[in-house]
């Protein structure tokens, strides 16, 4: 059975020696054998050549970003956080209640008209619906690997791309110098309206920034965490902004403050 060169050859020990798997004492025994056995020392050199060639050939397949994102999404879904639909509604009833006392003084007809007007004008109208939409859209863009229709890191390519596709011009800023690289833009639908989605990247995290015109008060800011995603919403200069990402909260806040700092007045 044994096909070794002579009785003192122990091929598996030579292999283990070349693999660095022997104790110091065992290694000494093999080393002294290698000095006198041409076949074993050749085998040892060949094994090391093979290991070296495999190591030098870049044969290691690293996990693609797509898998990381897919996994991050699946893991986030494992977190015991209720889905958007199951969340309690936004403070709409309280505001409605405050106005209702005023409305009660007026005619019933006037009350109906007024609360309808308030719902449209001042309330965070369907904020949960929008929150749900932007998170869905964020997830969809990652799952379908469809982040950008205009994949570009150049704000001067991304901004004009929206011309003729939407009826407003979203502010596009590259924040690569601050570690938030613009990676493209696309047109998306949120809350039944066509919006601009700008895509930024921080390390392996993507940020979807949804933008559309809005005349909501500039002060209203809103943050939330749903299913592992952080969401920050604010209004500024006649635009409504929703930033969604699996990025941690402090960094997403940093992103938002950078955007607002570089935004044109």
């Amino acid at each position, binding site marked *: *059975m*044994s*096909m*070794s*060169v002579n009785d003192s*050859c122990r*091929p*598996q020990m*030579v*292999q*283990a020696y070349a*693999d660095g*798997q022997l104790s110091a004492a065992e290694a000494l025994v093999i080393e002294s054998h290698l000095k006198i056995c041409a*076949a*074993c020392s*050749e*085998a040892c*050199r*060949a*094994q090391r*050549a*093979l*290991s*070296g*060639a*495999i*190591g030098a*050939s*870049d*044969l*290691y*397949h*690293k*996990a*693609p970003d*797509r*898998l*990381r994102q*897919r*996994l991050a999404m*699946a*893991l986030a879904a*494992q*977190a*015991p*956080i*209720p889905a958007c639909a199951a*969340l309690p509604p936004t403070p709409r009833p309280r505001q409605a209640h405050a106005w209702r006392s005023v409305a009660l003084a007026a005619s019933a007809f006037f009350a109906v008209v007024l609360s309808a007007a308030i719902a449209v004008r001042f309330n965070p109208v369907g904020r949960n619906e929008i929150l749900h939409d932007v998170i869905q859209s964020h997830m969809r863009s990652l799952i379908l690997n469809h982040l950008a229709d205009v994949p570009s890191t150049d704000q001067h390519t991304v901004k004009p791309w929206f011309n003729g596709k939407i009826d407003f011009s979203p502010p596009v800023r590259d924040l690569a110098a601050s570690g938030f690289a613009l990676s493209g833009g696309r047109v998306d639908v949120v809350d039944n309206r066509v919006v601009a989605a700008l895509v930024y990247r921080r390390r392996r995290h993507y940020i979807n920034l949804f933008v559309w015109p809005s005349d909501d008060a500039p002060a209203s*800011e*809103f*943050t*939330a*965490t*749903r*299913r*592992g995603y952080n969401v920050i919403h604010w209004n500024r200069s006649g635009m409504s902004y929703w930033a969604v990402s699996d990025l941690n909260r402090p960094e997403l806040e940093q992103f938002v403050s950078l955007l607002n700092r570089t935004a044109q007045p």
Partner: protein
Amino acid sequence: MTELGAKQASPGSAHRLERFNRIVLPHLDAAYNYARWLTRNGQDAEDVAHEAMLRALQFFDSFNREQVRPWLLAIVRNTFYTWLKKNRPLELAESLNDDSIPASLQDDPSHAAILNADRRVLSDAIERLPREYREAVILREMEEMSYQEIAAALEIPVGTVMSRLARARRKLTEAIAGGQSRDVYERKR
């Protein structure tokens, strides 16, 4: 400002997920690389690695003290076999005769050919190895795992790890040398 997520997650499971992300997730590259060489296909490897990571989370409670990588790669391997049974049942049948003759030291290992082998030649040679040899080579040469760790990942004795490695290396050496001599022959023609 609302921060519902952190409050509503139960501390135990949030902590569990955080531990998983910290301990197991850093080995995603190893899981994918292993799956990639087992399936020999990028898309299938993504599916297997993804499924394996979710299984690892499921079994995470039973994980304790052991080395993470062998534990995780054993799960990748089991996931791969489940996947293979379902998707490529014919390949499952291709079995390995582990009683074959041990590698001979007398043959010329021709390490000049090995040193000159390029990435493509090496990659093809590894992909053509029988599965049991291939995985031993991947864990040893790419993951640089110890014999004990490989034994734990493959759920086989250390002696079997050593014999599979020896045979795998012999086959690789032959394939590389053979590939190069065939190239020479084709060029002459």
